[in-house]
């Protein structure tokens, strides 16, 4: 549907890729660890290695007591709803991660504080 209006109603998206000066947005969420309240967002160049996303940003989840118990080769990674296996040494672009993609990971057996999902 379109916006009912008295005049032509066309506007560019406020968060389109070109507004980030060579970077793109990536969102990250650790499933069933809701003490972090919501996914976080960072802006990185498409050439950024996935390892940097992991070491500089995803690692902030280490505050959670479940973090040291993660068995990393059992972690299920998803880009949106699609399961994928990230290549840590490849770039975001090479891992198929585009602007405003949501990277989520699940850690089987770890369901947050006292199994609450938090």
């Amino acid at each position, binding site marked *: 549907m379109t916006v009912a209006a*008295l005049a032509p109603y066309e506007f560019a998206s*406020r968060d389109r890729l070109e507004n980030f000066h060579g970077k793109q*947005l990536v969102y990250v969420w650790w499933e069933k660890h*809701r003490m972090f309240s*919501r996914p976080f967002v960072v802006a990185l160049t498409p050439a950024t290695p996935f390892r940097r996303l992991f070491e500089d*940003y995803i690692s902030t989840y280490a505050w959670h007591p479940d973090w040291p118990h993660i068995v990393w080769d059992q972690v299920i990674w998803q880009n949106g709803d699609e399961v994928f296996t990230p290549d840590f040494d490849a770039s975001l672009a090479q891992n198929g991660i585009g602007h405003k993609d949501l990277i989520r990971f699940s850690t089987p057996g770890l369901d947050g504080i006292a199994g*609450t*999902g938090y």
Partner: protein
Amino acid sequence: MDMKVDKKLGLKERYALMTRDLAWETTYQPMDKVFPQVTYEGIKIHDWNAWEDPFRLTMDAYWKYQAEKERKLYAILDAFNQNNGHLSVTDARYINVLKLFLGSTPPLELMAARGFTNVGRHMVGAGPRVACLMQAVDEYRHFQTQVHSISNYNKYYNGMNEFAHQQSRMWYLSDGKSFFDDAITAGPFEFMVAIGFAFEYVLTNILFVPFISGAAYNGDMAAMTVGFSAQSDEARHMTLGLECIKFMLEQDPDNLPIVQRWIDKWTWRGTRKLASVGMMMDYMLPKRIMSFKEAWEMYFEQNGAALFNDLARYGVKVPKCFVQTVAEKEHVTHQSWIGFYMKPDSTPFHTWIPEKDELDWLSEKYPNTFDKYYRPVLEHFDAQEKSGNRFNNKTAPMNCQVCISTIKFNDPDDPMKTLIRSKTYKGEKFHFCSLHCEEIFDAEPEKYIQAYISSHQVLQGNCAPEGVDTTAPDFEPGAHIAAYWRLDKAATGDFNGSEDQANFAAWRRQATSN
């Protein structure tokens, strides 16, 4: 000139003379040129005279009663201040609910005033025009009295002085701003459904009535009088909203699907906005009057059901989101408090973990969810804080493209899972907190792709204070955010150890000893 109205006239005659008779058909220009905005939304009106204000309040009576309300209000405020009333509140933590409430509401009142000024200009009939004029003046009054209230508390407590600057910049204020921006950029009829009906009639009872009664319960006479004085206007606002719905539905059957879409949309947008109000009731009032869940049941489920059963004769259905709101009433306030608690550097008010007796109260009020999902994590936060490891999530949030809430609400089918819905529109991804927000987007994507999402603005380099070169190679987008927000450091952080906590204790000692 002093207008003398014959006192012997009855209310109906007086209303006809002082309202209906003030309107005229234009002759120099055709009516549709003078009132260009009332047709493009698709609402068909055949007889504007069918709209009558059931209060039959005329402007002369309006000024008389409003003046009386103002005299009462300011007499109480003066007495409160002369008596150091701020020290008689239950607990210094209470002040933080004022920081959040008074810091976020006045700019929204101002937007409501602008909206009703605009709608009052564009509605054709004298009935709605006069009622909109009164409501516009009311909203300015609420704005003004709330700012005066801020001024009183701002003399003693941190974090209240930059509310106007922060309104259009700060992350957690973006949802309320978006709500009113969405309404005011809609046509006049949608604005009336948004603010007059969904917000005032269906939801404002929860916003104001139990919350303000709670302020009284916590000894805050100033917030109580400001709140109830504003609320005394709301009965009129609610009536205007309901009259507008009935008027549209009675004028033409083609109006029903449009009105239904607006009711669905705005009831949901209002519900999302209320999550933080519920949090104030459950977490920020030291003495609690009723839980958010109880307020939701009393004012939304029971009262709302009566309203929608009544409107069923026009073919109106209960808002689509009704079932989801009933499920969410057990969760949203806890999720909101965790969302604020984990950002101690990013709000001009303090957060804390409730005391044990308060946690027990929450367990009792939320028997289905609190112990199962929320109490363990709050106790974990508490233990960490006491061992010097206070939770501080320094990352930037992901927000819903429509309601601008942070994406923190659970999947209605699984409280352990966060619901995130995503879609691609014109090659770009967009994310939503709920199916309802996604449907609002689908109806008007061109509107919502313009949404102001604070964290994205930071990452675009748009949130630096003056004098900072955002094009410099070493520019760090997040480094200047506190300065950009004009966030007073003393106002941030946990309540425990805050300057407010220490000052309040010292002043209360002075007030009760020699």
